């Protein structure tokens, strides 16, 4: 396997412009002859499907939800970054590029990140034109707020519902194309296998989740926009249906998996409160604009927060990182919370929590101002915890939130399988080892609106793609694989539910491959996961049949894939013998507990190639070069 990034030569600010000129075009009259299959309808998938349909391609779009509007991009709260410099505070495309590379701890590809920063500006224009109701100042112009890892205000937002509003914008563009007959939408359809013909991605096998019917859909290119795999931890801020099946099936057919160990544990989530818990809820990073994070200075201090005097509180982020304070990047803020709790200074039941306190901001700005900015988040917190955050500080703890790793793609967002493109969180591309807040929405929409519509044309114009017959042996083979897997799930008839296995996997992953990792723990996990997987295939109980709506069967397929992916994550984490961003190996840290990178040995992307059942996957590397954002120790002090 050869990893060619295909990043264009030349100065960084000219690369994308040059590439857009050099890419081949598909004649407008020929575009409708090309069918493109888009899997997923979140920010990346919906914007890609709509934009490619506007260009004239024949698009089919698939999602497991009952409507494309429900994809989990909708839950993003805080905002979207763009280098508009509307605040006149010194922002620029280069600064956004630099902040993103630095935030990712110098483990992302420069060319991609620069293009992302460049495109950010157009995204805001596009969304405003669609009628996205961004927050505004009294003069009628757009408002901004600050997010972690930046010292400028470049985050655009729509209350605490930015993801929802951006997704509804992309969804409305998609629905317009559906109404025009340019996109055929398949809700409640789950992709279970890619179809490769002559080594190229030519279609997918889907299951109609209502009737259970399997169907192959064929086309000239496939775009996966299926999101991240953070639900491998079971408890996560992801939606319950989020899964890795599409990317994992593609991996097993030859798409390299980039940096699987790069996961983001978000610092501000509502803490776990019971065994039965099914998910964790994020409290937006934007709250760190006005909320101050602290724990008691004393270990085991069980006084109510209001009873703890100011000088007995440790505002540990402000103390350790005075220049960024509470807006330190996510990986750093999460680790600091873990350290405080490990030190016995955590608050709340079980001591796994820290305070996020708004009393200063309420005193300074008034309760109404805080309500206007964060009202819906405060309400959500109150609904879940039965505590009023206007009166008592929120309690928060880190949780699995995002995965920077994903399928490896080149500059054209194409995987190592020709024709298989991967966009949004599903790819590994732009965030290195840690993603900055408000950058996921930016990347999803950049990929979907402004990158894939160009690069897909270049692929289609460069390849000779004969029509694939519905009864082609490769189509039949993929269908047979899906039928056989389904049969196996239903035939096991064991004693434990799918959720029990998912929880057990989540516990292993959180303990050994979570916020802190070490060789011993990872090796233990690499023993435990295959054993658990073995038990799953012996003892899982999936009732009912395929030919009906069967939620246990849906979950079984997803958890079976997580049980394989979890192992690859641990393997990748074990072999990356350094700490960088969200990947913190306890053996590699500075004297004051910061991540210690090893640029000599690990300034590269690790991309894993599937080698067959029972065989160790092959680790390939793509060297990373930093010509514009020079390698430096990340400091937020």
């Amino acid at each position, binding site marked *: 396997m050869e990893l060619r990034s295909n990043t264009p030569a030349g100065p960084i600010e000219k690369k994308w412009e040059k590439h857009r000129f050099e890419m081949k075009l598909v004649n407008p009259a020929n575009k409708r002859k090309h069918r493109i299959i888009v899997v997923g309808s979140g920010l990346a998938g919906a914007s890609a499907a709509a934009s490619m349909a506007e260009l004239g391609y024949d698009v089919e779009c698939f999602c497991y939800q009952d409507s494309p*509007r429900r994809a989990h991009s*909708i839950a993003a709260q805080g905002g979207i970054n763009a280098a508009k410099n509307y605040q006149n505070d010194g922002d620029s495309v280069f600064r956004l590029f630099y902040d993103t590379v630095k935030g990712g701890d110098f483990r992302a590809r420069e060319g991609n990140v620069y293009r992302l920063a460049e495109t950010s500006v157009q995204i805001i224009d596009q969304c405003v*034109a669609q009628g996205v*109701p961004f927050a*505004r100042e*009294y003069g009628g112009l757009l408002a901004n707020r600050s997010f972690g890892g930046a010292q400028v205000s470049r985050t655009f937002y729509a209350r605490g519902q930015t993801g929802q509003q951006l997704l*509804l914008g992309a969804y409305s563009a998609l629905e317009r194309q559906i109404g025009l007959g340019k996109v055929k939408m398949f809700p409640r359809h789950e992709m279970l296998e890619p179809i490769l013909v002559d080594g190229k991605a030519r279609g997918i096998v889907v299951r109609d989740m209502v009737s259970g019917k399997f169907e192959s859909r064929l086309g000239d290119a496939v775009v996966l926009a299926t999101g991240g795999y953070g639900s491998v931890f079971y408890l996560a801020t992801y939606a319950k249906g989020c899964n890795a099946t599409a990317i994992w099936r593609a991996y097993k057919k030859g798409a390299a998996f980039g940096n699987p160990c790069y996961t983001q544990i978000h610092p501000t989530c509502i803490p776990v409160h019971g065994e039965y818990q099914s998910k964790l809820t994020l409290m937006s990073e934007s709250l760190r604009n006005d909320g101050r994070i602290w724990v008691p200075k004393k270990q085991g201090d069980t006084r109510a927060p209001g009873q703890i005097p100011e000088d007995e509180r440790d505002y540990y982020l402000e103390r350790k990182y005075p220049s960024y304070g509470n807006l330190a990047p996510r990986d750093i803020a999460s680790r600091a919370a873990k350290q405080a709790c490990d030190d016995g200074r955590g608050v709340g039941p079980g001591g796994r929590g820290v305070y996020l306190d708004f009393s200063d901001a309420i005193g300074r700005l008034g309760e109404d101002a805080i309500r206007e900015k964060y009202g819906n988040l405060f309400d959500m917190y109150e609904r879940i915890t039965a505590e009023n955050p206007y009166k008592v500080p929120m309690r928060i703890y880190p949780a699995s939130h995002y995965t920077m790793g994903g399928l490896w793609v080149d500059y054209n967002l194409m995987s190592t399988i020709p024709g298989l493109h991967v966009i949004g969180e599903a790819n590994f591309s732009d965030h290195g080892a840690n993603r900055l807040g408000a950058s996921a929405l930016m990347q999803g929409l950049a990929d979907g609106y402004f990158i894939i519509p160009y690069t897909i044309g270049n692929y289609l114009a460069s390849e000779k793609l004969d029509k694939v017959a519905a009864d082609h042996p490769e189509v039949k083979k993929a269908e047979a694989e899906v039928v056989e897997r389904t049969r196996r799930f239903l035939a096991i008839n064991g004693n434990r539910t799918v959720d029990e296995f998912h929880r057990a996997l989540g516990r292993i992953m959180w303990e050994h491959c979570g916020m802190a990792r070490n060789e011993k723990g990872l090796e233990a996990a690499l023993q435990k996961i295959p054993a658990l997987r073995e038990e799953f295939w012996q003892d899982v109980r999936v009732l009912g049949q395929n030919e*009906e709506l069967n*939620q246990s069967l849906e979950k079984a397929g997803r958890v079976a894939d997580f049980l394989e992916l979890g192992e690859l994550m641990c393997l990748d984490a074990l072999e990356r013998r350094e700490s960088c961003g969200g990947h913190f190996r306890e053996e590699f840290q500075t004297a004051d507990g910061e991540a210690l990178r090893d640029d000599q040995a690990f300034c590269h992307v690790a991309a894993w190639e599937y080698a067959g059942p029972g065989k160790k996957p092959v680790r390939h590397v793509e060297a990373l070069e930093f010509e514009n954002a020079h390698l430096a120790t990340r400091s937020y002090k």
Partner: protein
Amino acid sequence: MSTNGKSLNLTLHVWRQKDARSAGRFVTYEAKDISPDMSFLEMLDVVNEGLIQKREDPIAFDHDCREGICGTCGVVINGSPHGPRRATTACQLHMRSFKDGAVLTLEPWRAKAFPVVKDLIVDRGALDRIIAAGGFVSVGTGNAPDANAIPIAKQSAELAMDAAACIGCGACVAACPNASAMLFTSAKVSQLALLPQGQPERYDRVRKMTAQMDAEGFGHCTNHGECEAACPKDISVSNIARMNRDFIKASVIAGARATRAGDSAAG
């Protein structure tokens, strides 16, 4: 997490229906040892795990984000869509809202335009088709002027955001005695009518969306206001008034157009 209250025992009468073609019926289950800190859907998870242990078919219910924003979940609890708590989705409803020994009847959204798929799951595709009929600004990718080129009064932007907060769950339809989708449709109509970007297509939009709404078999609004009371996002019925105004204007405009077309044909 602060309540640490005593666990609850509940009786559930749950609508079970194999698929769209089969007849449905209520089946009674006991939900035992339920923590008051569980969400309503976590309570159903516990019941389902118990059913699977007994080799019985678990209750099918729609859900996804479990944080009140995707609009997937929805169950009628003792006659109220999303249950008793105001402005709260079923996934954000917690068991501390119920008393020990409570008897709960769980049903799917009931409306002609929302056929039952299985148990508590319905098909809400009609709402997507209303959006596809006109719930958008026709702006192709790459066509946009600078985002700050058109200032928008903060108050208009805030009102548009209030309307845009709709999550498309369909509780308004389930709550309405006429199974009307007016609150849903008017929320999108209002959002775009309040913003300058929405003006060029304003009157076409309202006509197309209401026509689709009728074609899907939703009823008409007779001002009960049940929709607003059930809405988990507090969408106001004043949006319906705004849509009605625009609809009347649109009809006048369409009438005038037809007259002009008639005049020029005659001339």
